[in-house]
């Protein structure tokens, strides 16, 4: 589970010191049957061996309730940001409890109603939450059966459950509904031991496609996001921002801003803000503030950053090694040595960071766009110097996160301003602030030296990654002599590493690592004169990976040929969040302009048991589409401490006209545990396009994004 080290990013040492007060919790939740359970696989954290166990809540951190009206409610700190768990988690419960999907309610991300949760990221929701959730459902069903057995005086084994009713197997008329069983009860069960969950053959709802449960609200404009929360007397805040990173506010003359009718200016240390009933007027008033800053000099820019990174990188840490590199090198007749570069990328969700905060008495309530409501709660409590118990975070729908909304700067800003002004306050970043304060996917460098014998068997692999992070760095080919070294992690790097904040970006680290590894594989295949698919299969023993590769190849109609074949097709594979993925792309390269058009993408994925195939397919399509961006265009440009991209005019994200035909295959693997699905299909997009470009025109790209200029440069090199 080492690949999930990135979970550390914002969380180390920050687990809650308060344990959920069970009594308070159950009191507010009303009557019924309660199943309390713990969402994570405790062994995951034990394995990590970071001595954190002591800090983790030892109690449950999710629960489900069968209410006196027979409805099933699941209370979880997870949030819905488009990944569809509002549907897939409910499906699991419906199946285990034998109720219709309509009678399952999801109560999500409300820190007063839901027990503590680490956050929604890392493809974890279904992976770690799924098994205990299903077990809790099964346990709920067991309680209902016991209660019914007592009431109907029939043995449990002679009872059936269907559609929210327990009935006798022999006499359909002997029946009692869940609502009747839960009526007037307050039963509390803790899920401790193993409970038998349903086998895949018994699923009625899980693994059947269903459309999103939140679709109606979202197509009718009723779905509420953080900026849609409107409270009586609420003011909109616009904050004074520095012109560049590392700048310090020296002085600010706010007198002209104060003259704007209805505008109030608040200042607290470095925080200077204008509050107004209307956000647009607050913005106009803010522009009237005259501020002076002390600027810091920096020579870094988006071109020299790579040399800088290698220079400041710590000496490496081996994450995997085996055999003897020197022996391997001596056995290799074909050598490939290359350096791969990747620039900073923005998360760029269409909804910028937003939070609405209100203080009543000593209780603070915030509605934020956040992937980590419980961290937000702690951060607000710390900023205001109040107990965490006095802070409630209510999670509205989140308009895309991709890892970027694990940081809660705007939440703290809104809470501080609500306190300063004594009014409800909304902070909604504009697009420029979003690009400025984003925790970018880190720029990174990877160097690889590898070689094969004359039959194309890889003999050695020496891999160094600087700052992309560990996830996806371990290769899975069968190579006798190998070493994988990470120099610096993907986030939380020492000061002086990156000129601005960096953080987890959808499948953190893996996009960069897979780009490098799979490009290197292709170069070795080409030098060995082998078809790139055949080369991979020959060097793999991992059956799951071979299977996704051949499945994708079959779907694509792959015909063996060595690259460059002129056909413009590329192949790449990888693993992420326990899922294996293989992608094949077909591209067209305009040699004059350097434009690359991706025409077709075929992607096969083995993600274990799939809870909602429709949802999983959509996630794969989303990954492939988003992946076109980092592969072809997305790159944060900066000079010194200035971020040069402030909006979508210069930072281009994928558009309709970029879209290839997308075909996805999900391997039927019902008996394996569910694995992550929100990220894997994005990791191969860089490599598959690089390899397809090579196959099309014989030019090799070593840097993401593969912009027209870089394609032309590579063509010129031949």
């Amino acid at each position, binding site marked *: 589970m080492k690949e999930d080290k990135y979970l550390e990013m914002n969380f180390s040492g920050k687990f809650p010191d308060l344990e959920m007060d069970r009594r308070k919790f159950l009191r507010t939740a009303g009557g019924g049957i309660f199943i309390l359970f713990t969402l994570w696989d405790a062994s995951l954290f034990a394995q990590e061996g970071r001595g954190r166990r002591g800090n983790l809540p030892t109690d449950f951190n999710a629960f489900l309730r069968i209410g006196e009206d027979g409805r099933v409610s699941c209370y979880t700190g997870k949030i819905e940001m488009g990944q569809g768990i509002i549907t897939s988690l409910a499906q699991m419960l419906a199946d285990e409890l034998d109720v219709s999907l309509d009678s399952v309610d999801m109560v999500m991300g409300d820190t007063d109603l839901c027990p503590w949760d680490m956050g929604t990221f890392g493809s974890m929701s279904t992976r770690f939450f799924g098994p205990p959730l299903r077990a809790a459902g099964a346990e709920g069903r067991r309680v209902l059966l016991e209660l019914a057995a007592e009431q109907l005086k029939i043995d449990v084994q002679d009872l059936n459950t269907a559609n929210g009713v327990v009935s006798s197997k022999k006499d359909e008329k002997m029946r009692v509904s869940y609502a009747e069983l839960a009526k007037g009860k307050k039963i509390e069960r803790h899920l401790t031991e193993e409970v038998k969950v349903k086998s895949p053959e018994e699923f009625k709802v899980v693994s059947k496609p269903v459309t999103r449960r939140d679709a109606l609200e*979202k197509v009718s404009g009723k779905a509420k996001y953080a900026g849609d929360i409107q409270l009586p007397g609420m003011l909109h805040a616009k904050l004074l921002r520095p012109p560049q990173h590392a700048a310090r506010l020296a002085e600010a003359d706010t007198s002209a801003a104060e003259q704007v009718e209805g505008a109030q200016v608040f200042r607290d240390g470095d925080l200077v803000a204008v509050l107004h009933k209307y956000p647009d007027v607050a913005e106009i008033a803010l522009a009237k503030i005259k501020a002076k800053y002390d600027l810091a000099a920096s020579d870094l820019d988006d071109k020299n950053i790579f040399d800088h990174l290698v220079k400041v990188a710590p000496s490496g840490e081996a994450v995997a090694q085996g055999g003897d590199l020197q022996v391997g090198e001596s056995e290799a007749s074909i050598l490939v040595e290359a350096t791969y570069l990747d620039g900073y990328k923005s998360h760029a969700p269409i909804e910028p960071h937003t939070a609405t905060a209100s203080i009543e008495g000593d209780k603070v309530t915030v509605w934020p766009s956040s992937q980590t409501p419980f961290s937000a709660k702690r951060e607000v409590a710390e900023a205001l110097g109040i107990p965490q118990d006095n802070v409630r975070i209510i999670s509205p729908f989140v308009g895309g996160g991709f890892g970027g909304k694990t940081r809660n700067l705007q939440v703290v800003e809104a809470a501080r301003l609500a306190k300063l002004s004594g009014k409800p306050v909304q902070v909604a970043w504009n697009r420029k602030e979003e690009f400025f304060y984003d925790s970018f996917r880190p720029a990174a460098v990877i160097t690889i030296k590898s070689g094969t014998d004359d039959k194309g068997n890889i003999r050695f692999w020496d891999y160094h990654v600087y700052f992309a992070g560990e996830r996806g760095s371990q290769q899975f080919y069968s190579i006798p002599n190998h070493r994988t070294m990470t120099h610096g992690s993907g986030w939380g790097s020492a000061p002086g590493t990156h000129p601005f904040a960096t953080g987890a970006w959808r499948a953190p680290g893996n996009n960069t690592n897979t780009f490098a590894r799979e490009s290197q594989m292709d170069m070795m295949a080409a030098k060995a004169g082998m078809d790139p698919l055949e080369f991979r299969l020959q060097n793999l023993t991992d059956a799951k990976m071979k299977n996704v590769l051949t499945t994708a190849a079959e779907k694509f109609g792959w015909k063996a040929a060595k690259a460059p074949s002129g056909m413009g097709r590329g192949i790449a594979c990888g693993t992420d969040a326990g899922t294996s993925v293989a992608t094949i792309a077909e591209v067209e390269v305009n040699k004059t302009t350097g434009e690359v058009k991706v025409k077709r993408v075929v992607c096969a994925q083995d993600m274990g048991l799939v809870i909602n195939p429709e949802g999983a397919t959509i996630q794969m399509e989303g990954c492939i589409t988003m992946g076109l961006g980092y592969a072809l265009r997305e790159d944060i440009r900066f000079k010194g401490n200035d971020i040069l991209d402030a909006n979508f005019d210069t930072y281009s994200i994928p558009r309709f006209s970029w879209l290839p035909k997308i075909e996805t295959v999900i391997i039927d693997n019902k008996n394996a545990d569910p694995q992550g699905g929100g990220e894997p299909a994005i990791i191969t997009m860089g490599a598959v396009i690089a390899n397809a470009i090579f196959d099309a025109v014989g030019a090799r790209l070593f840097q993401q994004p593969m912009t027209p200029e870089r394609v032309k440069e590579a063509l010129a090199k031949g």
Partner: protein
Amino acid sequence: MIENVKFKLNGKSVALRIDSDRLLLWVLRTDLGLTGTKYGCGESYCGACTLLVDNEAVRSCQVAVKDVRGKHVVTIEGLAKNGDLHPVQKAFMEYDALQCGYCTPGMIMNAVAFLRKNPRPTSAQIIAAMDDNLCRCGAHNRIVQAIEAAAKEAKGGF
């Protein structure tokens, strides 16, 4: 300038005493409490704020409220008729043409305006018409399918 501005909003008349230079997006979202129209970029690049002004798709982050004087503004909230969703809304649901849903109102409004002008589009025409509406979740191909399906369903009757 503070003055009276009247226009029709989702079928009903509105009369505002307002600084008429203020942007329609914010007037709708704050003064009028219609939050279905979203802010995404504020500079006409993303289309999240798209709505209809006299049946044309307009980016409300670029339009002053005085510019809609006497006109008919329709937002995502006003698209359903007597509780019946617009065919484009239905098709978005049916084709799962959304993930986080934040770009969705703008996508739907842009598609509605486009289909009024071109009720029987080819998919290439749909792609061209939608190209300046951004979606970060990658719902694009499904959005195109949904618009195609809505067009078929309506048989030219938008």
